């Protein structure tokens, strides 16, 4: 018992000598005490909403009508309905497509590419490119969404530009809604990946790269065998962050296409919003949100595995 406390000599004097047992619990409490506010905040603001949404997804809570007054616990009925809902597979597929094309491929590769190029570029060019890329990211999401809308819509900037070289206008938001929102999300989010990779590349020691160069390795080989393995952890962290961010993108899509036309860009967040607030089915909308949490968790597990691999 005394051995227990003596291994932590710095706490020894404060735990009250003599009462071994109570002294030890006291020590634990004292140690935890400074953490208490943080744990409480985590519980209230992070775990709380998740637990509450999981609970909500088991009820038929509604915004109006009888179920608003007296919501009933209905078990897994919302989930059963969701898996029967013909809109669900489509929204799920669109969400995965959106995350894969705009985050994992678009933002990630473009961010890495820009960071690598900026490492080589002169200070002036790097500064100009940096400002341009980061500007899109600094804009509030709602503003960025309007900028993207003004760019892609029927009489928007893109069609005006293509018209000057004689290309017939394309109604992007109507004919290619997914392409438009994917491009918009790449434009908006690339800066984040770029900054993560810039920081990571700064930590790659020059000597290793130089010695590889002396051994005759070309640029592509050095990137593949030296640089990428050394920033592997940053890649995994970056992928996890941008995947979770992109999974939750709502404003950008809602402003640009509102999920249309004919649900052709209705990702899960848009579907959850429609069900919960447009059709008043709060319980059902919450079930969709819980499914999104699970999808995020699956992606996270994959990335954590990636992070651990030697």
């Amino acid at each position, binding site marked *: 018992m005394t051995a227990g406390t003596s291994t932590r000599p710095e706490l020894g004097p404060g735990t009250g000598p003599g009462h071994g047992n109570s002294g030890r619990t006291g020590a634990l409490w004292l140690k935890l005490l400074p953490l208490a506010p943080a744990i409480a905040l985590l519980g209230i603001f992070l775990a*709380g*909403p998740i637990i*509450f*949404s999981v609970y*909500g997804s088991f009820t038929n809570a*509604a*915004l*109006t*009508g*009888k179920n*608003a*007054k007296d919501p009933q616990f209905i078990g897994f009925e919302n989930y059963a309905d969701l898996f029967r809902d013909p809109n669900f597979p489509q929204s799920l597929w669109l969400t995965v497509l959106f995350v894969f094309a705009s985050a994992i491929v678009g933002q990630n590769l473009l961010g890495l590419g820009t960071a690598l190029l900026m490492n080589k570029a002169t200070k002036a060019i790097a500064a100009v490119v940096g400002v341009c890329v980061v500007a899109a990211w600094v804009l509030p999401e*709602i503003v960025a*969404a*309007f900028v993207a*809308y*003004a760019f892609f819509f*029927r009489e928007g900037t893109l069609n005006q530009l293509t018209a000057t070289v004689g290309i017939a206008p394309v*109604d992007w938001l*109507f*004919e290619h809604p997914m392409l438009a929102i994917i491009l918009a999300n790449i434009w908006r989010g690339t800066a984040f990946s770029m900054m993560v990779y810039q920081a990571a590349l700064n930590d790659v020691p020059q000597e290793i790269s130089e010695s590889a160069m002396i051994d005759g390795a070309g640029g592509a080989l050095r990137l593949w065998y030296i640089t990428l393995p050394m920033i592997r952890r940053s890649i995994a962290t970056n992928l996890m962050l941008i995947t979770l961010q992109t999974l939750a993108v*709502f*404003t950008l899509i*809602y*402003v640009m296409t*509102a999920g*249309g*036309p*004919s*649900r052709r860009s209705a990702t899960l967040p848009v579907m959850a*919003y429609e069900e*919960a*607030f*447009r*059709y*008043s089915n*709060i319980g059902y909308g*919450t079930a969709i949100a819980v499914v999104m949490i699970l999808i995020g968790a699956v992606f996270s597990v994959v990335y954590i595995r990636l992070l651990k691999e030697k």
Partner: protein
Amino acid sequence: MRGTRNTSVKSSLSLIAAGLLVLTGCSAGGGGGAGAGDDSTLRIVYQKSGEGSPLDTLMQDVKTQFEAGNENVTVQLEPVEGSDEDYATRLALSQRSPDTAPDVFYEDTFKVRSDVDAGYLLNLDPYLEEWPDWERFNDGAKAAGVADDGATYAVPLGTDTRVIWYNKNVLEAAGVEVPWAPKTWDDILAAARQIKESQPDVVPFNMYAGTGTGEGTVMQSFYELLYGTDSQLYNEDQQKWVVGSQGFVDSLAFLKTLYDEELALTPAQALDPNIWQAVFGEYLPEDRMGGVVEGSYSPSFWQEGGMFEWAEYGDVMGVAPFPTQNGQEPGAVSMSGGWTLAIGANSQNPDLAFEFLTTAMNQENLLKYTVDNSQIAVRSDIADDPTYLESNPFVADVSEVVDVTHYRPATSDYPEISTAAQQATEAVITGERTPEEAAADYDAAVRDIVGADNVVEE
């Protein structure tokens, strides 16, 4: 155009924020304080569609009058900027907690029944009995505030109808006789084709379709068609939703003809939620559209102080009732909606709240609102008032169709069914589905929404 999108998105964002608050169980404002608990504060929530909108003006006026008459009372106006749907969601979210529920609020007639079911609205019967003016409200309008239990929960501010608004310049140039009075759907197509031939750059006859224009698609287009066939949307006697109806297919087929022959706007334009603004602000005033099915409130956009001021609208525009499919009885069809004022079930000051409501509804205030907002009068002493009768050149025409008008089946499933109908129109005009396929999709969706027991096969 961007401006309105902005407000509607802003309010969507606040909705989401509010939604999160509800989901996480953290009710804003937390007990007492400046909420409904404060004896001398009345909270009024309403929809504001822009600076100086008629409803905003009404509420500002009533606040001034009411505070002058009740020294200890503060009236707190809480306008919500956004679309009808965003407003409804925001209102419903605030009603979920007694701490945030307003005392008096602006309520869409088709939400009354489901909001009464939800326990949000106060039964007004005891108050209305002692209000002499109540007799002056017409019975049709009164019915909009009655719930399933037969009690009245909301007082109508006004009502509206839908008719064909046509541009005489365009019709005359095409050789269509003015005043135009189509008797069947074919008459409309014939005139539209004539316009197309003489003026290829003009949109001959537009009817909304798709989910972009939301409730406007059904109220100002699809229901005019459907209710003019021999089929129904909802069987009132059996209280069941109608599926498998020929009228539904025919109505979709009519829209398909209109869009396939390029007699209406392009499908891409039709799906733009703000297209109605272009119709009122550009197409009709610039003689670029022959006709459109729109609400009796249309002059409110064109008259002085409106969103799209247009001094000549009275001379250029004409109205005609929308005909039934083959001219069958009663020959014309219209749809009506309208808004009410209601009192929160948990209001701490129901007496004061009702007094506020009656101040807003007195002859003088309601007359001004009815005229400013181009509403159809619901009080007899307003309907007969010369100011109202002369407020715009179309008051008599749009009031006439009250005889043939229909109201939406205002059950709590209605919004979802309405969306299913909008999706059917969208699938047809974009060419994704034939009218028969889209109608079958709609039938399946309705069965799914209300359950097989609540539908009736036609």
